[in-house]
């Protein structure tokens, strides 16, 4: 068997040394350091044990160069000085510790080809060809329990270079019908014609960026889950109008309230909802108010906003927020207060600047609670 493997490798242009032994560790050692016909591990150098470089260096400095020298060493102190790993390697070579070899093979790419007897020139017929390919791809994805984030349709015309149409999704999917619908949207949005008058003779549909996707129980009321429908809608809009056409308001993990929200494309996640109390409505920019506070860093007692004087009966704070020192637009520190006036209305006010930071701090109305 060994001769056979070596000759097969030689035929492929590799020169190889091979050894057969009861354990992978021993085979490794004998193939690299062994002399033909002598299966004894003891006289081999310690490097034959697949040691880590530090452990090998350490052994060399201690003058222990052959396996027979460390075979007899007391196990506890050997492990403490040279390392558990070296001991494990020794045991693996002699079969005292088990070692399994797990071959890892790359997962083959998922794609489906269609060749046509006659070239196809019409969009509709290409779509039908793509649908057949999509069914194959979908079946293969289902076998693997996976969905893809990206699909690419390659069209091979009779004349000229291949053309590729790419579809990006906001969540992994493998539904052939949805895929064909998205392709149709994409075709509609294309400005250049799909192919010239000679038509295409083959197409290939490939799936990329595979993610785990387990079949979910569909809602028994209307057969569709809300999340999936929304994703299908945003995918359709992005496919037709471009990735930036469908945006979603998200939270961002920032302390400054005006930076804590943003409109981003649907594939970007939202930060978790912070546990500090923030009003639903913010003014952008915050509105300047006149306020009178009794104590330097306390809440105001009265404030004038849009020419109406409000008397504060309850207040909570301050929540002190300092703009990041490394950002270009770092303003003064703010002290936010949640206040309630005598009418029961609740406001979110802040004083810009600590009293030792600025000459005369200004007050702003930043938001309304409920």
């Amino acid at each position, binding site marked *: 068997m060994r001769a056979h493997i070596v000759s097969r490798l030689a035929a492929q242009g590799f020169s190889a040394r091979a050894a057969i032994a009861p354990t992978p560790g021993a085979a490794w050692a004998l193939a690299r350091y062994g002399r033909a016909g002598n299966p004894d591990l003891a006289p081999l150098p310690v490097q034959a044990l697949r040691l880590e470089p530090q452990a090998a260096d350490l052994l060399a400095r201690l003058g222990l160069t052959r396996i027979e020298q460390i075979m*007899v060493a007391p196990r506890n102190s050997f492990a403490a000085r040279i390392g558990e790993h070296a001991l494990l390697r020794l045991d693996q070579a002699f079969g005292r510790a088990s070692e399994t070899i797990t071959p890892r093979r790359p997962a083959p790419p998922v794609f489906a080809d269609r060749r046509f007897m006659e070239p196809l020139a019409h969009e509709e017929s290409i779509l039908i060809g793509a649908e057949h390919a999509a069914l194959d791809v979908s079946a293969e994805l289902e076998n693997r329990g996976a969905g893809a984030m990206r699909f690419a349709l390659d069209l091979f015309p009779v004349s000229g270079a291949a053309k590729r149409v790419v579809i990006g999704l906001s969540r992994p999917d493998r539904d052939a019908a949805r895929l064909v619908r998205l392709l149709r949207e994409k075709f509609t949005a294309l400005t250049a014609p799909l192919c010239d008058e000679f038509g295409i003779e083959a197409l290939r549909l490939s799936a990329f960026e595979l993610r785990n996707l387990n079949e979910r129980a569909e809602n028994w009321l209307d057969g569709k889950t809300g999340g999936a429908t929304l994703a299908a809608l945003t995918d359709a809009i992005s496919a037709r109008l471009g990735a930036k056409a469908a945006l979603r308001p998200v939270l*961002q*993990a*920032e*302390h400054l309230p005006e930076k804590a929200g943003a409109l981003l494309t649907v594939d970007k996640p939202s*930060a978790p909802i*912070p546990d*500090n*109390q923030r009003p639903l409505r913010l003014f952008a920019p915050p509105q300047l108010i006149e306020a009178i506070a009794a104590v330097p860093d306390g809440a105001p007692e009265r404030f004038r906003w849009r020419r109406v004087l409000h008397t504060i009966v309850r207040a*909570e*704070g*301050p*929540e*002190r*927020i*300092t703009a*990041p*020192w*490394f950002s270009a637009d770092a303003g003064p*520190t703010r002290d*936010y*207060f*949640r206040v309630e006036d005598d009418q029961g209305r609740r406001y979110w006010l802040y004083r810009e600047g600590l009293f030792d930071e600025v000459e005369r701090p200004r007050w702003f109305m930043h938001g309304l609670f409920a």
Partner: protein
Amino acid sequence: MTAFAELCATTNFSFLRGASHAEELVECARALGMAGLGVADRNTLAGIVRAYAAAREHKKTFRLIVGARLVFRDGTPDIVCYPKDRAAYGRLCQTLTVGNMRAEKGECFLDLADFLERAEDIQAIVIAEPDDFLPGLLAKIKAAAGAVWLALPARFDGNDSRRHRQLREIAAQTGAKLIATTEPLHHTARRKALLDVITCIREKTTLDAAGALLAANAERHLKPPTEIARLFRETPEAVEETMRFLNGITFSLDELRYEYPDECVAGYPDAQTALEAFTWEGAAQRFS
């Protein structure tokens, strides 16, 4: 002037969390007119020697107490521990050793039980948000250690007055005594920049991407006693209690001397004889 001592200060020996040297904290606390300072790092006593060296010359006017901030893996809130005497210091060291032996180097896995077993004569400050579990925890520590303190932190997150009211209620209900603190991570507000940078290193991110991982403000520094008195004007007893806490501690690093371990091996009169015998035995094995 109000007498106050900050008792929950953290040095840069709380790796990638504290942004000031122990010496800076001691100097700054003295300059601000504090009566004393308590230095407690995360699951280590490593920072106390430097603090001790910095405070040694000012022993008459400034009290330094040393301890550790125990951070637990079982969800128990942090507990800042100060040993009252030499024996309690030994117990605190043992607790930390138990945690260190359990974990990889650099980590410390502690459970509440580890602390409770060796809590005798340790003055413990619990740093916790007010919740339903807190009274039970305080009762357990009080039973094990004889007394318990509860941190009253000024966090400037908008909920201080609410939190203080709830902590006052829990303290009244359990007999825990409140301790005013700003939980300093740095000695002056200007160190916030360094704090942000080390926070980024710890969280493996950049300043631009860190967002809410960074502290919202620069308030976790040492504050002068007058400022403390103003911040805690609703709870002056929490400021006064820091002085009583300080006076309850008699332990000082002066009491520690190097103690050479007993190295006699059973069956041999002294270490040298044992070593010779073992060497011959080993040589016989090696060179046979």
